[in-house]
């Protein structure tokens, strides 16, 4: 077990810089998810931690060892790949034993560890099969088994669930979390799926275009997104964004001229309102013209436009509602749930 420290990491390919100074402290036993859209550099960052990519600048520490110049094998990490990367010509048992054998661990100890891991993952009956005889979920377990038996300092996961179907993904997600808690090992997990990120991580590092947008607990990200990007990325359905103008008298003027209170600065700002934070109120100043309803049973998603504008808005109301298109509803929002961002920089105000 060990902590993991990233100090000002840069990565360039030729003249193209893809990571621009990533820093972060990951505590011993913590589960950190690196999340971001495709191409944001999250896999590259993970591969730099693993030692599969050269670090252009900056430092990576596992515990208090600087590992920049160590081979992947010497970093005491284990990695689970997106396509599982099992050795196709070896049985499940050989797959799991491979790394131990190389480390010269005794046969008895190898067998003990492999069987223990197989019991945890419930793959004991498949130990003598070849990977191609297993289903996707089973292969995923073998890949995790191969990581577990090594008893590494840090677990690295590179989108391990993205090849599984939706149902299995939810199930494996829970299992990975349980497993990590049970083993108490430090884990770094890369995904582009914000739900996966929110449910798995003790903390989330949101990456966008090679920069860290925010690094915090799931609830921090949800309640106080540091930037427009994080605000739009976390939460489903996504946050509503509206342009507004801060007035000298502390009021905010919306696009359709309606004025609400709570301005944090003068001049143009971008307002963020989560659909679930819009409270229906006949007197409410935020008036939405209904176009389409999505009935989800437990709640109803109301799609529409801000009255008098083309601005698309979504509100989520608990329970079942029947509304005809064209009707205008009024909504309120609590001031602490009204997010305000600098229109130019996208930073939270």
């Amino acid at each position, binding site marked *: 077990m060990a902590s993991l420290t990233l100090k000002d990491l840069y990565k360039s390919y030729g003249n193209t810089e893809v990571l621009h100074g990533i820093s972060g402290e990951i505590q011993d036993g913590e589960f950190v998810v690196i999340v971001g859209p495709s191409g944001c550099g999250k896999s590259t960052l993970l591969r730099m931690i*693993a*030692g*599969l990519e050269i670090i252009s600048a900056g430092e990576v520490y596992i515990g208090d060892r600087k590992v920049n110049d160590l*081979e*992947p*094998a010497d970093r005491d*990490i*284990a*990695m689970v*790949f*997106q*396509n599982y*990367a*099992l*050795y*196709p*010509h070896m049985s499940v048992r050989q797959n799991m034993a*491979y*790394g131990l054998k*190389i*480390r010269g661990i005794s046969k008895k100890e190898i067998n003990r560890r492999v069987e223990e891991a197989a019991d945890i993952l419930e793959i004991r009956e498949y130990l003598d099969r070849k990977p191609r005889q297993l289903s996707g979920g089973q292969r995923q377990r073998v890949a995790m088994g*191969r990581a577990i038996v*090594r008893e590494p300092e840090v677990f690295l996961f590179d989108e391990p669930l993205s090849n599984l179907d939706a149902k299995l993904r939810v199930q494996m997600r829970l299992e990975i979390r349980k497993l990590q808690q049970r083993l108490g090992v430090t884990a770094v997990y890369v995904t582009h799926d914000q739900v996966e990120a929110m449910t798995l991580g003790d903390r989330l590092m949101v990456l966008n275009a090679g920069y860290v947008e925010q690094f915090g607990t799931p609830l921090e990200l949800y309640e106080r997104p540091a930037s427009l990007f994080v605000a739009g990325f976390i939460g489903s359905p996504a946050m509503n964004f509206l342009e507004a103008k801060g007035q000298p008298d502390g009021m905010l003027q919306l696009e359709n001229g309606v004025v609400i209170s709570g301005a944090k600065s003068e001049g143009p700002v971008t307002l963020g309102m989560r659909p679930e934070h819009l409270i229906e109120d006949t007197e409410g100043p935020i008036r939405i013209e209904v176009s389409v309803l999505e009935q989800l049973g437990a709640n109803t998603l109301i799609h529409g436009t801000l009255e008098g504008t083309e601005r698309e808005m979504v509100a989520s109301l608990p329970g079942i509602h029947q509304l005809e298109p064209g009707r205008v509803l009024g909504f309120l929002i609590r001031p602490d749930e009204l997010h305000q961002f600098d229109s130019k920089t996208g930073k939270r105000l």
Partner: protein
Amino acid sequence: MLKRVHFPPSILPYLLVAPQVAITLIFFIWPAAEALYQSFLIEDAFGLSTEFVWFENFDALFKDPQYTGAFLRTAFFSGAVAFLSLSLAIVLAGFADRVVRGATVYRTLLIWPYAIAPVLAGALWAFMFNPTLGIISYALEFINVDWNYKVNGRQAMALVIMAAAWKQVAYNFLFYLAAMQSIPKSVIEAAAIDGAGPIRRFWTIIFPLVSPTTFFLLVINAVYAFFDTFGIIDAVTQGGPANATTILVYKVYNDGFVGLDLGGSAAQSVILMALVIAMTVVQFRFIEKKVEY
């Protein structure tokens, strides 16, 4: 349900395959049939009369120690050529797979030898190793190697093996490189994280995973060494010294066109034909199934 498309009967498909059928008939089936017929004939020394003798030619061949000698020599020759060219190719492909900069140049250069005609390849090696003029013979003199493949049978054999293997390395290299590049990169990376160094990764992961290619190439190389090396041998040693490099295909030529024993030569070529058919069957039967791993 798929609907079957029906075309009206037409002569066009027959016309389209006609050239290939014609080539096969004229250049393969006809000579093969001719050889088969010839192998049952004996001609007198002056070419004045021929006699139909059934299997007498074959009988004589198998009693001839020169022929059985050539058989063993061919087995050794093709085994050595296949082993040498396959092992060189797999090592080169292993490096090429890791090369990042200049990979295209490296690959192109490695593929060149394949484009050279066997006779020219043979001539190249004959020049380099020529006992009186050769640059390598000259170099060998400094380390006290008495090099003269024109009188030393073992040296002659070594030389034709090297020349034949060298020419085939390019072909094998291409196949190995393709096979290695089709191994998912993450499998190799997983092995690296598991602690395997490059050499260990090669033996425990890459080598077993390219084994279907190895098997395929083994058959191809054997066929190559059996037949396509004629040009090399003719250019370098003409089967000598004292038949030390006379492999089966060279003996067919030598007995038929130099020795003018047409019946015996035809019988040899029929045996070779049977061998190549057998190898083709092996290739189709087992390679289509792929090697189990």
